């Protein structure tokens, strides 16, 4: 488990992270969401022991992470601008990381390089941005650490590779309880992978919740009512967040459990009703409004 307690970090007079307390449980995918400058990278760099917090402490499985080899051996950090040695090949990087991560799986690295159709003997500086990201992800996955910190890692990956990486993560979470922590400014990138999301804004954490928990209290329903006058009743009885009407088809995003919402609609004897899947964006609209923020101004 990663635990941050009252962590703050300033760069001269700029407060990058302001008194953040958060817990990241093992075996889940933690999404760290926020705009540019929200403090995501700073938080990750503190969490992997690169930066020293000005105040507070971050610990990994109970061990303070800064300058602690044992704690740091549980983490692999993929920065948003991963460094590869000049003229190094993927094999060189594999050997480099193998020197410091005792559980580094060279065989799997070679297999994955093949699967991703990356030449392990080609100089990395000749790779495209996306290919470099792939190499860094493969190094991170094959380091076999308990925690994998990815800073904007999915940015620049094509959808096929992104899907492949997600399936590797899912596999490793299943097999060895990998805990990926993924920082991104793009909600859609994390939509189908995160279990838990932390929203950072101006160095502070606005919320940190399980996606399932958030999904439990917000739903999107499409329905066609028999009587147009019932619309007013529906809007009155439900905690409406958003409505959209096309002809007689009404799409509503409302707070409440699925049972409560369906119960209200059923009482109006609709011609048709259906629960639709909610995007992470839509969930966040709801949650950030609760704490008094307009998510559209924060992220989109």
């Amino acid at each position, binding site marked *: 488990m990663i635990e941050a307690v009252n962590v703050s970090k300033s*760069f*001269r007079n700029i407060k990058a992270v302001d008194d953040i307390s958060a817990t990241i449980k093992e075996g889940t995918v933690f999404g760290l969401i926020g705009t540019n400058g929200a403090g995501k990278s700073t938080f990750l*760099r503190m969490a*992997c*022991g*690169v*930066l*020293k917090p000005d105040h507070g402490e971050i610990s990994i499985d109970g061990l303070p992470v800064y*300058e602690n*080899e*044992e704690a*740091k*051996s549980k*983490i*692999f*950090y993929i*920065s948003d*601008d*991963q*460094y590869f*040695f*000049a003229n190094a090949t993927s094999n*060189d990087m594999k050997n*480099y*990381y193998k*020197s*410091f*991560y*005792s559980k580094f799986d060279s065989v799997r690295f070679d297999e994955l390089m093949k699967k991703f159709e990356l030449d392990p003997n080609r100089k990395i500086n000749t790779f495209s941005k996306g290919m470099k990201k792939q190499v860094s992800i493969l190094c991170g996955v094959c380091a076999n650490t308990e925690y994998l910190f990815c800073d904007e890692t999915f940015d620049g990956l094509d959808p096929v590779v992104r899907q492949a990486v997600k399936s590797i993560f899912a596999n490793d979470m299943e097999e060895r309880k990998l805990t990926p922590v993924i920082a991104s400014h793009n909600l859609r990138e994390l939509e189908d992978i995160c279990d838990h999301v932390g929203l950072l804004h101006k160095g502070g954490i606005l919320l940190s919740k399980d996606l399932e928990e958030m999904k439990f209290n917000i739903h999107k329903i499409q329905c066609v009512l028999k009587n147009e006058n019932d619309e007013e009743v529906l809007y009155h009885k439900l905690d409406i967040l958003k409505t959209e009407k096309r002809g007689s088809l009404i799409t509503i995003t409302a707070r409440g459990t699925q049972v409560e919402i369906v119960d209200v609609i059923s009482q109006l004897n609709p011609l048709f009703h259906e629960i639709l899947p909610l995007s992470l964006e839509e969930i966040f609209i709801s949650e950030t409004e609760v704490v008094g923020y307009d998510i559209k101004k924060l992220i989109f």
Partner: protein
Amino acid sequence: MTSKSLYFNLIREDLKRRVWTISLMMLSFVIALPIFTMLRLARMKEAINNTSLLEAQKYFAKISNTNNIGLLMTIAISGAIICAMSGFFYLYSKSKVDSYHSIPVKREKLFFTIYINGIFIYVIPYLINLLLYFIIGAANGLLTGYAFTGAFEALLINLTGYLLVYSITIIAVMLTGNLIVGLMGTTVFLLYGPAIIVLKNAICETFFHTYYATEGVSDNIIYVSPIFAYVNLVTLAGKKGFGMFFIGVFIVAALAVVAGIFLYKLRPSEAAGKSMAFYQTQAVIKILIVIPVAIVGGLLFMSMSESNSFGWTIFGILFVGFLSHGIIEIIYNSDFKSIVANKLQLVICIVISLGIAGAAKEDIFQYDSYLPDKGKIESMGVSFDNLESNYEYYDFENEYPNSYQKYPYVYHTTYRLDHMNITDLSMVYPLVEYAIANNVNRIDYSQIDNSINYISFTVKYTLKNKKETYRNYTVKFDDALEYINSLYADENYKNGVYQIFSMDKNIINSVSYYNLVEGMDETLKLTREQMNEFLSIYENELRNLTATEMVESFPVTQISLEIGENDSYVVQNYYIYPSFADTIKYMESIGANLDSVIDADNIQSIIITNYTDGKLDENNITIEKPVTNEYVFTNKEDIEKITKALILDRFTNGMKYNIDLNYNYVVDIQYKYTVNNTDRAYLVIDKLSEDIRSKIQ
């Protein structure tokens, strides 16, 4: 992972990244040792044929030992800077820092492996190329034990110098955040100390009339600069004091390593790419740079101005202070608009700079009127600049090995002040009191009157607390002569001025004198006992020499002491004055010709050149051009007349007073013996016959 294998992995991986540094170092040593040896091989073989095998072996040994160490020192200094900068270069890049600092390795381990690799990168190519050098030497019969030990002694010294520069450059890297500032920081660390010493000397030279720059001032440079400390280590090799200095350098290098580790642990990772790693140090370092630079600007503008006005100093301080402060702010903030940032710090820098310059100009610390209480003085020393000019001094305690000059030369003021301990202050204190009250302002040359003889002298105060202070004064010679005569009565004064008193006479190989009649030096035929007896007589009479006699008369002749052996020696000359009756008698008794007139038969010609000064009006415009006339005399009668009025140039050294010697007439004597055997002399016009006088005027 075990600690041992982790270190091994770290060292291996770091070396992989530093192949270019290893290659560069290897290339440098290949050029400096095997290639250089091969280039000089022909000369060494020539030495074997023309001189001896020993000479060739000595020449071979010089390539790698401390005698010819310039190239190896250059490699050590530049290599140390390159290795320190390249080893920790990752600290200047955010992405690299993220990569290095996220791996599960403590910073001290990272530091240690990179530091150790920096030593390997220097030592291993050095050793490999030394081996190649030895092989070349052995193959050509030039390798000796002397070459072997000399090479390893040089290796030890170079490695120590390398470690010092390397460790201090690492501190500069730790304190800075990007390459440009890192290089500037390295320059500051390596050269700030000497620059401050030079600036202090410049301020003193500019504003203090009694300032005397002792060699001791520049000696401090070895304590404030790693490069100069390294140079001193090489200079001291094989000499007294080497061991202590070597240990000192080693301790400083070790402390620098500890400081480097400490700073690395403190250094925030986010410093990468910024100018300074520690924000708090920015202002301190800026102020430490801006103040001296502003003062240099002030002195520069003052020296460039025709008026030498202090107003220009103020302008220079303001202008250069503002510029340097602004440039540093621009570097710190990577923003040109920052040129006017931190105005309060700029004001502090300017105020301190003006304060230093103003305090020096107004002499608020009373530098020029400094005179310690008699009760605080243990001893004093005085050295006149132009009184005893004929004498040269040598360090007989040290010898130059394999050199034609056996002993090192010592600057006359340095020797005298180091060897003169006047404890009877009544002999010297009044002179200094008079000099402080009547010191001629050497900086304001308008005070100098060309018709008056001035004499400058340096005083050394050795206080009872062992502090040594120096001052230099310039006074009118007429007034000073009385005080100088008092000094001449002091035994300690003469002990300091005339090295013959303290010299071991057994190192004197021979004594010669100048035969004026024949126009040549002649060796006195003396046994060792006779030489000692002769020198003893001379010393007795030298003890009684008065300053008045010295300046108001010309020597009868001079004796030259050849000190050392036939092929390696130095020469000291001593004058024999007319009052040295016993010395003259002794010399004549052993056949020396001390007649004061050159034999006209020996002279082929005499050329008298008359230099007439030009004249300037009030506005410095020439109204009368200087004229030079030359008169050639070959007639024996004329020559005989002229020789009676001649004083040889070699006997006119030092201050002369109440002497009718006209320096506007320069006489060149051409002897008959050889074409090049010439001598220079001056005329005592009163002794010149009327007909000759009319010819040349």
